[in-house]
């Protein structure tokens, strides 16, 4: 099956993608008494926590730290949950995978798209803080869709790769979760890139997550151009991740129905 046939097959199943995404969002948002509010409370609570620890106690010298931290938390949240929630997307639907055929990549794809919608909604949490800190938008804000696209490609690639592998080998899920705890500290979620020693900056920004978070902050908060080289590299890495994810997923998807 060529890539085009595959895309056509996915197109025929777009109703399933839509249903899974809307189910995921509706169930997540109406799960608790506070409903939608609760789904968006988490980044605000984390922002408050980081503001106390890093701005008040550790004295990280970053202007508008709460807005800075919130941007980091929200962008990181999409990466982290997009990949880790997808890990079990196939095993959780084992009963369907074993009984009926549909393009399997729909399962991680729907999970990632659901997280993407949540991420886009979460970005609006920044608005009151931008107003409070008197941060005005600059034309660089128009780059936002490009950043979202690069991040979506990255998250989708990693989600396809790791959901496939962790279905065959359960412990890969633990490794991925462990890696994300490490990546959190290797990414500028709670501290600015400037705190990284100059000689490590290039290496540090080779991490696409670091490049993306820094770029988001540049265009939203400081109103400056993103670090172009790092962002270009991140785009390249993301496309590579998607290609690898698709390749691995399609190599092993046949065995899902046999191992589950």
């Amino acid at each position, binding site marked *: 099956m060529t890539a085009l046939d595959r895309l056509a097959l996915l197109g*025929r*199943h777009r*109703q*399933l993608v*839509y*249903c*899974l995404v809307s*189910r995921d969002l*509706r*169930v997540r948002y*109406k*799960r608790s008494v506070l409903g939608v509010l609760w789904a968006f409370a988490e980044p605000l609570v984390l922002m408050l926590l980081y503001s106390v620890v890093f701005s008040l106690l550790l004295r990280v010298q970053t202007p508008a730290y709460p807005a800075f931290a919130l941007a980091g938390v929200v962008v990181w949240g999409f990466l982290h949950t997009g990949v880790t929630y997808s890990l079990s997307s196939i095993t959780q*639907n084992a*009963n*369907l*995978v*074993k*009984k*009926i*055929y*549909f393009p399997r990549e729909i399962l991680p794809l729907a999970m990632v798209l659901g997280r993407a919608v949540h991420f886009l909604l979460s970005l609006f949490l920044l608005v009151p803080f931008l107003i409070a800190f008197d941060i005005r938008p600059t034309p660089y804000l128009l780059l936002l869709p490009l950043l979202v696209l690069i991040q979506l490609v990255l998250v989708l690639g990693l989600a396809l790769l790791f959901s496939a592998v962790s279905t*065959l*080998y*359960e*412990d*890969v899920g633990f*490794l991925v979760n462990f890696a994300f705890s490490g990546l959190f500290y290797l990414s500028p979620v709670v501290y600015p890139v400037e705190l990284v020693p100059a000689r490590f900056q290039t290496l540090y920004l080779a991490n696409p997550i670091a490049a993306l978070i820094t770029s988001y902050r540049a265009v939203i908060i400081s109103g400056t151009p993103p670090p172009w080289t790092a962002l270009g590299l991140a785009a390249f890495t993301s496309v590579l991740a998607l290609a690898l994810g698709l390749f691995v997923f399609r190599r092993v998807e*046949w065995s899902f*129905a*046999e*191992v589950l």
Partner: protein
Amino acid sequence: MGAATIRVTELCKSFRVARQPQRSLKETAIRLLTRRLEYDTFLALDKVTLEIRAGEAVAIIGANGSGKSTLFKLISGILRPTSGTVHVSGRVSPLIELSSGFHPELSGVENVYLNGAIFGMRRAEIAARLGAIERFADIGDFIYAPVRTYSSGMLARLAFAVAINVEADALLIDEVLAVGDAQFQARCLAKIDELKAAGVTIVYVSHDMGSVERIADKVVLLEHGRVRRTGAARPVIEEYLAAAREGSANAAAGA
């Protein structure tokens, strides 16, 4: 006779069964290093050739482990052949209840849309069949309640109502009569007759010889992954029952 809807040629399917169950990277790595990763190969289907023409109703019978379910899964595209080919023209849909695809918090109607989408139906198609699905499930106003409030029988009926209303050129049916009470089963059989009369190709897998004889024009008897006999319903069923009696007599004699 129309063009073949399902053509199975020299189909083989073997499963690798690890001697020790392993589904972790660590264990696989250790076994690879110590060269102890050993598999047994189990041949579930052995060169099965079968042609099911458009509008034909074919039943597949055989003892447990004869390869019926494997053949079923290969035709529906869930499994990939080890060798040989499965050629399907037209839209094939399995008639199975997918209540495991229901979400407990969503209403019956919302779950019908979700379930229909799993079968590959478009939104408009599902909307057009919603009335028929509601009538077939016959669960009254429960259709608007979250499915967590359903009894297991209601769950199965709603899921089944979706499956039976999928528009398909060929319907794969696996043990339909396991679902619901006698009245619901009668309704299922009536619906299958209706679909058959409308020219839908039917592949029926069952242990219930009564329904096999009623539904099938042609019966395929599988034995240890091979086709033992293909033909009109009555003689093939008799051969199967005779073989089963012989088998149990041998088992009793051996014991």
